[in-house]
């Protein structure tokens, strides 16, 4: 047993190791919902999901269930999906369009900015009983909502760093996702893929830039893809996902030749790790050639080369976003309980690009990021195994010390290390420690 208690939460995270309670303690999970998801900027949706006034979608800020609306003035609002009358969920579907948000229980109606617009038979409320103009009867709204190039974020803290300051240099990943569209805009399309695993949300984030695990966890899909490619008829171009499965099989020396990067506030990313397939700028794929020509029309040759040359794989916005710009993938890691996590995966359609680019992205999600994925199902099996093993036992600490102290400063607020470093996990856990230590 340990004498660690929640008054000294910073003691749970040391420079190279972390206490297992960080992954297993329901009280710590509740604190994360308050001190991380209840304070910092959290992604709640994309502008393309609510293009018209009156549109709304449901979203999550950690355990908090919200409605993201576009009101009559065109402004974005993030409201609790909970009626101020008796607590009923107001929106029961994932998305919709309506003049007002009406609670199904007693018909209380709200504007899209959360203000109470009316109640049935208001004569039942007199000055003596109730003041319906009291702002407490509005739907609770996030005090700060901001947009970065179409991506909607909200913060439950009335003040703090602005969104641009919070994102810092990881904004380059969102920029690159949008810049890859010839028309300079992306939209979320193709529907959302929702998956779950019985493990803590941080495991998924820590795994996303862990470059030692692929050669072990993904051995089966590496071998399957490699053997398939060996036996395939010569000249056939395999789909992206099979290329990616195969790409996971590079050696530890090759992983180490890549960089992993950590930023202030817990963001991080990794370099791209395989070449080949339709999205490889060096390939003469006819669809990619057409796409590239549209990009050159829009941005010119040099800028196009710069945009398409940004070769990264997973880009992580703390606390729970994973972006892959080359495949137009956007994933949200939704904490549900200390030992239960949902993953929402989206495809970003590049406006102005050939439709085949979007189809490639959809196929990639259906194959590599869906419940049937030969890659992520092994990750989830590992997370579930780790969660079950951490739940109890004498082994109190998890180790994250690989290449600790070897990171080099690069740029104002970033550090870099060789691929197999556990720098990305330490970057996230350091942000966790800083946020969780503030009462």
């Amino acid at each position, binding site marked *: 047993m340990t004498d660690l208690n929640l008054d000294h939460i910073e003691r749970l995270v040391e420079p190279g190791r972390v206490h297992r309670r960080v992954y297993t303690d329901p009280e710590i999970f509740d604190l994360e919902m308050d001190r991380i998801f209840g304070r910092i900027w959290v992604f709640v949706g994309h502008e393309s999901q609510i293009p018209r006034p009156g549109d709304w979608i449901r979203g999550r800020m950690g355990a908090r269930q919200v409605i993201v609306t576009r009101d009559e003035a065109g402004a974005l609002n993030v409201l609790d999906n909970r009626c101020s009358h008796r607590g009923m969920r107001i929106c029961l579907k994932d998305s919709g369009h309506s003049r007002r948000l009406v609670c199904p229980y007693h018909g209380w109606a709200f504007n899209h900015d959360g203000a109470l617009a009316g109640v049935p038979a208001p004569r039942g409320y007199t000055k003596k009983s109730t003041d319906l103009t009291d702002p407490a009867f509005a739907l609770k709204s996030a005090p700060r909502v901001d947009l970065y190039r179409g991506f909607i974020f909200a913060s439950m803290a009335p003040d703090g760093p602005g969104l641009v300051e919070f994102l810092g240099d990881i904004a380059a990943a969102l920029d690159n996702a949008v810049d890859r569209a010839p028309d300079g805009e992306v939209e979320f*399309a*193709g*529907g*959302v*893929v*929702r*998956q*779950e*695993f*019985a493990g803590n949300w941080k495991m998924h984030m820590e795994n996303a830039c862990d470059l030692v695990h692929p050669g072990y*966890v993904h*051995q*089966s*899909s590496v*071998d*399957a*893809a490699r*053997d*398939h490619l060996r036996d*395939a008829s010569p000249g*056939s171009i*395999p*789909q992206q*996902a*099979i290329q990616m*499965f195969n790409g996971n099989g590079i050696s530890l020396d090759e992983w180490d030749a890549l960089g992993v990067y950590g930023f202030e506030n817990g963001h991080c990313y990794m370099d791209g790790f395989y070449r080949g397939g339709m999205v490889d700028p060096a390939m003469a794929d006819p669809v990619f050639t057409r796409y590239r020509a549209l990009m050159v029309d829009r941005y010119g040759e040099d800028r196009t080369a710069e945009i398409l040359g940004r070769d990264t794989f997973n880009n992580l916005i703390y606390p729970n976003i994973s972006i892959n710009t080359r495949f137009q993938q956007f994933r949200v890691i939704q904490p549900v309980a200390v030992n239960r996590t*949902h993953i929402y*995966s989206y*495809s970003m359609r590049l406006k102005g690009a050939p*439709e085949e680019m*979007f*189809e490639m992205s*959809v*196929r990639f*999600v*259906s*194959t590599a990021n*869906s*419940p*049937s*994925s*030969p890659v*992520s*199902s*092994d990750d*989830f*099996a*590992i997370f579930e*195994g780790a969660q079950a093993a951490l739940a109890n036992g004498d082994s109190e600490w998890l180790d994250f010390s690989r290449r600790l102290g070897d990171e080099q400063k690069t740029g104002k607020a970033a550090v870099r290390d060789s691929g197999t470093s556990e720098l990305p996990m330490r970057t996230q856990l350091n942000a966790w420690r800083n946020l969780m230590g503030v009462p």
Partner: protein
Amino acid sequence: MRNAGKIDDLLFIREIEEFLFLEARLLDGRDFQAWADLFADDGVYWVPMREGQHDPLTEHSIFHDDKAMLDVRVRRLLHPENYAQIPASRTRHVIGNVVLDSKDLLHVRSNLVMFEYRQDAQRVFGADVQHHLRRAGDGFRIVLKRVDLVNCDAVHGYMSVPF
């Protein structure tokens, strides 16, 4: 005469049912390579993510495998270090309500219940299944197998054994 035609129809449906039962037996017996071999070279295995989904190219799916991806999937299912299958799933596919949507086009419709037991837990899936078949010698090849799960748009855990 009418009875003779009727008997021909019944024999034909029975022939198709036997093909579906064979497919189920291969899956439950984990003979995944033989299962994949039932697909034509241009065959597609598709499990949509939305009720009434029209297109696997513009909307995400749970499975969307061409013959190449089926080959990768089968090789991985048989790999000893497939952690999502340690321990392996035990499954039972139950097929019923088999009807011919089109006798000429060999479009077959059936209901499927699949029990899957793994790691102390049992999952049950129900589905509306469409097979588009092609004559190949004495038997059939699958051109399209579309599996519409009752809970297609649920939040799913990972899936290994095909439906």
